[in-house]
């Protein structure tokens, strides 16, 4: 019977959540209610835009997923890790299952492009040969194979963000969290970056992207979660932001 259930599960490709929030609330010590009773499931392989005005709770939502903050009530499960009861020493293991892209790129100015990407692999203890192979692969994927020896200051904003993307990809994470990755680049480059994320998503990586750019949300037709006043006010598939 159990075998039958397992095979039927495989046959019907039951979607498993990679991120799950159950009745999550977060209030900061200052008294600010950042999130209130949030319930949401993001399945493996989805591309999700998170939108909302400033103070809506987007940053807190992302910080809770990264386990930079802890929820006051409720349960959060990310990549199989139960975050509310997770010990501090286990947090690095959670982070290794995700890649993070920052709005301000966060490249180390004293390191060249190759070393900025390789840095993420050294952290997880990868061997020298593996580092060389995977970094070259990640840089080719974002179209910067020929800029490996350039310093960040020699690159345009769009190119710097692509280095950030390569760094997020290099450890082959299951989940990519992009915090307004198009916030500091021109509109053309914004489309290029989201296209790249979409390509990565097609290969099976779950992408969670915070953005203010409604045009991107409308044009790329992915699931949209809208936050307002710490609550989810809309959750629509297909780029509909109401």
């Amino acid at each position, binding site marked *: 019977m159990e075998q039958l259930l397992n095979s039927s599960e495989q046959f019907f490709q039951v979607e498993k959540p990679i991120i799950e929030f159950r009745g999550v609330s977060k209030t900061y010590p200052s008294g600010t209610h950042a999130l209130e009773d949030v319930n949401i499931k993001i399945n493996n392989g989805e591309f999700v835009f998170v939108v909302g005005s400033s103070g809506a709770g987007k*940053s807190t939502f*992302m*910080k809770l997923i*990264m386990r*930079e903050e802890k929820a006051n009530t409720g349960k959060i499960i990310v990549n199989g890790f139960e975050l509310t009861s997770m010990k501090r*020493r286990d947090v*690095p*293991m*959670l*982070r*290794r299952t995700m*890649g*993070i892209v*920052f709005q*301000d790129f*966060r490249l*180390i100015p*004293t390191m060249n492009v190759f070393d900025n990407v390789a*840095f*993420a692999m*050294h*952290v*997880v*203890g*990868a*061997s*020298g040969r593996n580092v060389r192979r995977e970094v070259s692969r990640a840089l080719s994927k974002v179209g910067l194979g020929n800029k490996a020896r350039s310093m960040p200051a020699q690159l345009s904003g769009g190119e710097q963000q692509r280095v950030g993307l390569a*760094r997020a990809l290099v*450890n082959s994470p299951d989940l990519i969290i992009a*915090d307004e990755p198009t916030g500091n680049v021109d509109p053309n480059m914004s489309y290029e970056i989201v296209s790249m994320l979409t390509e990565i998503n097609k290969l099976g990586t779950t992408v969670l992207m915070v953005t203010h750019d409604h045009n991107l949300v409308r044009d790329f037709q992915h699931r949209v979660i809208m936050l307002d006043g710490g609550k989810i006010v809309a959750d629509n598939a297909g780029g509909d932001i109401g």
Partner: protein
Amino acid sequence: MKLGSVKYLVGEGVKNTWVNRLMSLASVGVLVACMVVIGLALLISENVAKAIGALEQQNVVMVYMEDYNWALYSDKTDTSSDAAVSENGEEADANGIKSSDYTIHNDEEAKALCDKIAKLDNVASVTYVSSDEGLASVKESMLEGQEEYFDFLDEEYGNPMSCAAKVTMKDMSLFSETIDKIEQMEGVDVIQSQDDLAEKITAVKNGIYVAGIWIIAILMIIALVIVSNTIRVTMYNRKLEISIMKAVGATDSFIRIPFIVEGMLIGVISALIAEGLLYFCYRVATETIISTLGTTDIVKYGDMAWILLLVFLAIGIFAGIIGSVIIISKYLRKEGSEFAAI
């Protein structure tokens, strides 16, 4: 942690020391100053200990014995003609002294008492001084003309000096206890010593010991604060790097190691410079002392070089590790944010 990671992290620590060379140089400078002062304190205390050691060796205790000569001059001996024959029939000699009037009858017995004294824990050396040697020594120390008095005594009544044991002690702080033990031995008449000198030597030794500990403790704290501050500045300069490290899943120990390596390296460089500098300063100082005071009784740097280098390395590495660990742990616990750090 894998060997490759360790290599990478050590390399990063060395690289960071160079990248932050201005701060590293400032730390090395102050650490070297601290180490040189600690080294000087050690060298001075070693020289004082050597001088005190020489003084201790000079602080000789004379243990006079109850021998025939003692009996000659002792009030306890009854030399009247009535007592010429004792109750047990023992006959007195021409000086009216019987064998039972004194304890040490010959050189063998005197040397046996010397051996008994030598067996005490705190006794460094015992030299037997016969009564003839004692008399010659006393006469030698007399001013010209005064020795005639002793010649007169010797000729008229017999040698006034009884045989003695010349005793030196290992630890002057146990002086009184040792004297008490010797006094209780059979055959000991009187002990001549300089109790106040022993007390002074012990007080000076204790003073130097306590002062040395305080100097080293204070300078150790200074060294620790200096290295901590360098690491703190480095840490803030590298906030971006640390936030990225944490975001991509670096463990706390992975973040810590380069900083610890940096702290240790600063400590080791400081130790080597301090050793060289101290050697140079000490050589100049001792050459000046030897040429002006003419004394050669000074501790050689070569005898202390390894100890000083080990002390400097221990201070440097200890300050480096502890300073880095304290600051990084504080930073990682309170300020090492990922999203909001920058």
